[in-house]
């Protein structure tokens, strides 16, 4: 993107420009490159966290592929990301669009919807663990009001077919974070754009679709990336609500790594699973960027 003006500036610009980059570079090396080398270095080893390392070659990776819990964890993580991208984010955008129109009491809504994001995930997971309890939970109490035989005594967290969705429900509903990001971006759109569109005779929803959404593309990208990375790391919901169960039905990669490392003391296996998680994350984000480049919108 260099222009003539650029080149003239660059020469005189800043021999110390590298200093701007240095802190971030140093931290990245210390906190990511070094540990990553550690992970990759340990993944072909047999290590229990204390004793000596024992070379095991590809055995850890082979064990991963043979472990049904790992493949379930992998698929479930992909499902978490899908739910995040295609349910959680659109809902958040919808709410942000609604609130950006500043209806009565919008500030209250904005704060109230944001509060759950501030309460630690552990607390939210505990709450929903109680809500879903078949004996004294809120869901059971509500279902008891509906006189349908099939809806009584549902054990949503203990049923392998519903456990995963039950653990995802709080995540979908608590959309304060992405909503704030969207709202922040929307309020930065200058009035003129809306004026111009209104003069052209656009209705509200047309403005949303053709003016607002394309202009919040940076927010969409940021939120999408956050969704992917958050779901790769998330583990409180499955850990506290179901402990990955029943029978590993709701386990995800992060919980799998946690259990392999801190319960099975199989550090080599956990590192191998971590390597797989990293690879999956890179592929997903690569896909996202390819798609993002093809979509219309304002981005450089």
């Amino acid at each position, binding site marked *: 993107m260099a222009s003539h003006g650029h080149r003239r500036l660059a020469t005189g610009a800043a021999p110390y420009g590298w200093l701007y980059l240095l802190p971030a570079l140093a931290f990245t090396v210390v906190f990511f490159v070094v540990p990553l080398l550690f992970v990759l270095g340990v993944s072909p080893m047999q290590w229990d966290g204390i004793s000596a390392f024992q070379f095991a070659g590809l055995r850890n990776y082979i064990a991963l592929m043979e472990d049904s819990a790992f493949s379930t964890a992998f698929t479930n993580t992909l499902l978490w990301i899908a739910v995040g991208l295609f349910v959680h984010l659109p809902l958040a955008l919808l709410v942000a669009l609604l609130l950006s129109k500043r209806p009565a009491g919008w500030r209250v809504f904005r704060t109230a919807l944001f509060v759950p994001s501030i309460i630690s995930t552990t607390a939210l997971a505990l709450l929903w663990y109680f809500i879903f309890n078949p004996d004294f939970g809120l869901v059971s109490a509500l279902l008891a009001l509906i006189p349908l035989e099939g809806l009584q005594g549902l054990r949503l967290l203990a049923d392998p077919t519903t456990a995963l969705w039950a653990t995802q429900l709080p995540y979908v509903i608590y959309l304060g974070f992405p909503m704030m990001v969207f709202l922040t971006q929307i309020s930065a759109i200058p009035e003129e754009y809306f004026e111009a569109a209104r003069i052209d005779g656009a209705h509200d929803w047309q403005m949303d679709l053709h003016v607002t959404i394309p202009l919040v593309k940076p927010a969409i990208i940021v939120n999408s990336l956050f969704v992917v990375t958050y779901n790769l790391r998330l583990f409180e919901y499955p850990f506290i609500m179901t402990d990955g169960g029943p*029978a590993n039905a709701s386990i995800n990669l992060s919980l799998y790594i946690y259990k392999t490392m801190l319960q099975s003391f199989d550090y080599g296996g956990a590192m191998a699973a971590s390597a797989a998680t990293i690879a999956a994350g890179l592929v997903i984000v690569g896909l996202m960027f390819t798609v993002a480049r093809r979509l219309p919108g304002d981005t450089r």
Partner: protein
Amino acid sequence: MRTSIRSGVMVVAVLFTACGGPSASPQSPQASQTQQQSATPQAQQVNLTMMTSYGPNQSRGVVLQKVVDEFNKSHEGKIRLSLEINPDHPGMVAKIRTMIAAGRPPDIFHYNLNPNDLAIPQSGQLMDFAPSMDASWKSRFSADDLALFTFDGKLVSLPWQQSPALFYYNKALFKQAGISQFPSTWSELLKACDAFKAKGVACVSLFTQNDAWHTSNALTYVAACLGGLDLFSKPDWNASAVADSFAVVKQLFAYGTADAVGANYDVSSKGFLLGKTAIVIDGPWAIDPMNKAFTNSEIAVARAPSCDAAKAPAGFITTDAPSPMAAGKPANKAHADAVVEWFKYFTSEPVANRFAVEGSQPTAFKQNVKAQDVDPLFANYLAVSANVPGKAISVQRVLRPSAQTALPAILEALALGKVTPAEAAKRLHDSNTK
């Protein structure tokens, strides 16, 4: 914006200096040790840190803190022990392992001895107590216990606890179901479960999350009865005994609470405390909460049921893992002496009795209390667990770590009917031998 960025930078600078001050702790205990020792040639206070997962929420944690405080008072200026409480037990164990791997084991800590995972005692980084073991100190322990913690001729851990897991039952609920005596066999117990079901009461408290402790205890009682006390220590488990015990556990789930599958320890315990279940198989730490929930001595401790063709002696008990204490290799003689001083104090009879009287906790070093000195329910507990013909350790505690992780899923699959008891037994065996 610019001014706020600049003030932000200044805030960071202030924070750095502020945090570089009093709130920045000294380095790891051993480093500060050597610093202290090299300061002056005369006796300096030795600072020790003990890692524990027993916090003020449990009576043995309260007693531990009091014992530490009194030790510090009587050794003022010479030794100072501080407790580092890590209430999350797996987190504490992970931390201990990481510290040992980093070559800086904790000064003092406790852990669970697992015959299938001897990494900690065999790490070579623990202090050897054998040289300091004189005859009088040795007499505080049983020879079997000391042998258990001796590796390569080195005594690397000291016995502290091996808590029995016994049958607590709700007498009122039993009466209500028309059962006059605690069942003496497992088939009687299952019949009793039928009677409870008719009254809308669940039978035994069970749960599957984390370590499935209550369920593991039930499983072990049945399996040890059918297959012998050392059933799980044999590489090839007596397959039919284990499969049969899984079948009994499956029935117990059927007679259990609706939330047993996927429940955690708290939900399971509260089920008993709220009268939703009639029986719970738990350790001594359950006594305090029971006393708070039940006011009229409705709870009693019973002997375990026996079984047909029993291979274990009648009256045997299941216990928690042996939980010894250990110390990291000391930096110097003063440190080593302080550690020994602490342990001699800790394992003395007065302290042992405190654990019984104030903590309702049995210790592996001898306690000398009379029934009237301790809580009545604890006295009941001690009576049932005294002079027993044999002990079996709860199966979850002796499995390989990878099998420990697999157990909850196997139990859940069993309870939900996704696997047969024989398949469940096979899965557990496989995950323990891979």
